[in-house]
């Protein structure tokens, strides 16, 4: 039986917000390179933001209990113990194409990332795995920060079918998402399977392509 890798299904999610007040969060910060030596798709959650979360240098196989926690990093703040929605500043996920960045966010427990803008490759990688990236305006993100920095964590409900970010005390915030992306997340579709449904089309193209650029088929 075939078991294609499918993204997580996303419909409605309620969770606490982590306010990560930084712009240009690059994928090297999300998951540092030493953890990319793994050939598996799992086990990256423990080392999410490793160099920011811990004061000592982390490496594969170093147990969490032996790590020196950085008390100043927001993720270590007791208020944010159960976060699953990350809010950050512009150009989130820039740099390396490593999909491990998305895997580590998900495996830590994040379901949603909200920012004013995302780097292209990271943004694309999110959908492939069922992590929902939401673009909001700078002002809307600023508003979420102001609410998330209170004594208790801000709880949000992300409603994908109606495309709304909701919380008890605030007006729902609408967000945009392309139709196909939404469908992909709602159903956890096997992307490769969808493309393979068009195998005949690909073969037809290939035949013509061979005629126009035969050196690519030599």
């Amino acid at each position, binding site marked *: 039986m075939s078991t294609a890798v499918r993204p997580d299904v996303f419909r409605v999610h309620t969770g606490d917000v982590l306010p990560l007040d930084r712009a240009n969060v690059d994928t090297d910060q999300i998951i540092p390179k030493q953890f990319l030596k793994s050939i598996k798709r799992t086990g990256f959650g423990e080392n999410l933001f490793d160099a920011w979360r811990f004061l000592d240098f982390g490496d594969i196989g170093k147990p969490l209990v032996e790590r020196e926690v950085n008390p100043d990093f927001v993720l270590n703040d007791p208020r944010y113990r159960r976060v699953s929605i990350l809010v950050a500043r512009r150009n989130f996920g820039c740099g390396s194409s490593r999909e491990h960045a998305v895997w580590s966010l998900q495996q830590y427990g994040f379901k949603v990332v909200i920012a004013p803008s995302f780097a292209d490759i990271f943004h694309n990688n999110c959908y492939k795995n069922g992590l929902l990236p939401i673009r909001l305006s700078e002002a809307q993100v600023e508003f979420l920060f102001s609410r998330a920095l209170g004594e208790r964590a801000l709880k949000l409900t992300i409603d994908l079918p109606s495309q709304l970010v909701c919380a008890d005390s605030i007006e729902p915030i609408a967000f945009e998402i392309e139709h196909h992306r939404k469908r992909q997340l709602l159903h956890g579709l096997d*992307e490769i399977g969808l493309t393979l449904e068009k195998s005949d089309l690909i073969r037809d193209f290939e035949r013509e392509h061979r005629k126009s650029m035969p050196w690519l088929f030599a």
Partner: protein
Amino acid sequence: MGRTVHEKLWDSHFVGWRDDGLGILYIDRHLLHEVTSPQAFSGLAAARRKPWRLDTNLATPDHNVPTTDRDLGIEGIDDVVAKEQVATLDKNCRRYGIRQFELTDVRQGIVHVVGPEQGATLPGMTIVCGDSHTSTHGAFGALAHGIGTSEVEHVLATQCLVQQKSKNFSIELTGRMPPGTCAKDVILAIIRMIGTAGATGHTIEYRGDAIASMSMEERMTICNMSIEAGARAGLVGVDDTTIAYLEGRPLAPSGHLWKEAVETWRQFVTDDDSVFDASVTLAVDDLKPQVSWGTNPELVIDVDEPVPDPASFDAAKAETAERALAYMGLNSGQALTELELDRVFIGSCTNARIEDLRIAARIAKGRRVCSRLKSAMVVPGSGLVKRQAEREGLHEIFKSAGFEWRDAGCSMCLAMNADKLVPDEGAASTSNRNFEGRQGHLGRTHLVSPATAAASAVAGRIADAREFAA
């Protein structure tokens, strides 16, 4: 209305529409390396799928390989986890019959150096790789961009990607570069100007007389760092320089196919009446050597400029600048040329080709690496670059100056192997990213050209390469 190179590449690879309304784009060349492919191969196997077309794939290990004791092959990798990853690439390539330049093959090297060198990168191609610096190959009039591991699997299984066409961004480069400056200074100046997200959602086309007069290797340096300006792809239209570079390369067409190919390739230029969604112009006549002072590649200044005051940035960027100063151990107003360095790195997919090594060697010749430096390393981009450099005697110049002469790989650009900075060490580096910890935990990177790197190795601090220019 005319079409841009990007539009011509898109149109000539558009397969059709999927039922969900998404466009399918055909991929001509898929480059693989050890770090982002294992999960794609295991996904493929789990779904009982096979590669669609074997001959478009080309693999080589680069990210995770040692740059010493190459003759030991895979046994020379001390780190057992890294070794397993390289062995997994070998295993996957053998299992499916994918062509690989293995660790001990002289053709092994950084995947973005290997592709063009072999003629595996050709004009008019769509090229992808699970690495963001795939934009390098755009220098050949190809549509080339980095992809994630899920897409690596998608390309293996279908020979296609599901894509949305990006917008067109024109960057016109005019004039003549002054002595002591390099293509690296040009791209750093561009990123400084448009910012790290300046070209997000766009494919950049580099145009103008300054690009036309550049070599292929210089164009590759520029296209390579398109991703640092937010663009997934950067490219240059095909001209005589492109074609001259490719003739006789092992995987380039030959005989009557060469003639036919050249005719087709010449069409991959932007039509005069094309319209771009965005455009900027940069005159390179007054360009000075560029040096990054901060922790993202837009935080760059002229080598003779003081480190800026965070208050001079707009509010949204001031905090980033403040944080960068603290991380880098710098004060605003400080001259970078006063900054003592610990290490110098000459290498990476940005600057490890033969012309880069020649530039560095010209400065190193007859000089000595400052004794205060812990190391100054030259890491050729491929085994063939290394061999060529040795034929030219460059290795002797480097070695007698006190540089370490290493084997090919990504090395200290991302510091996945043993080549790395230790906390608080500062480096002048010809690589492409100065993120926190990029070159080693708490290490401090200054991105520079190969000329500036060589000059800085001699000076033991960030140096003005113009003072070393012949």
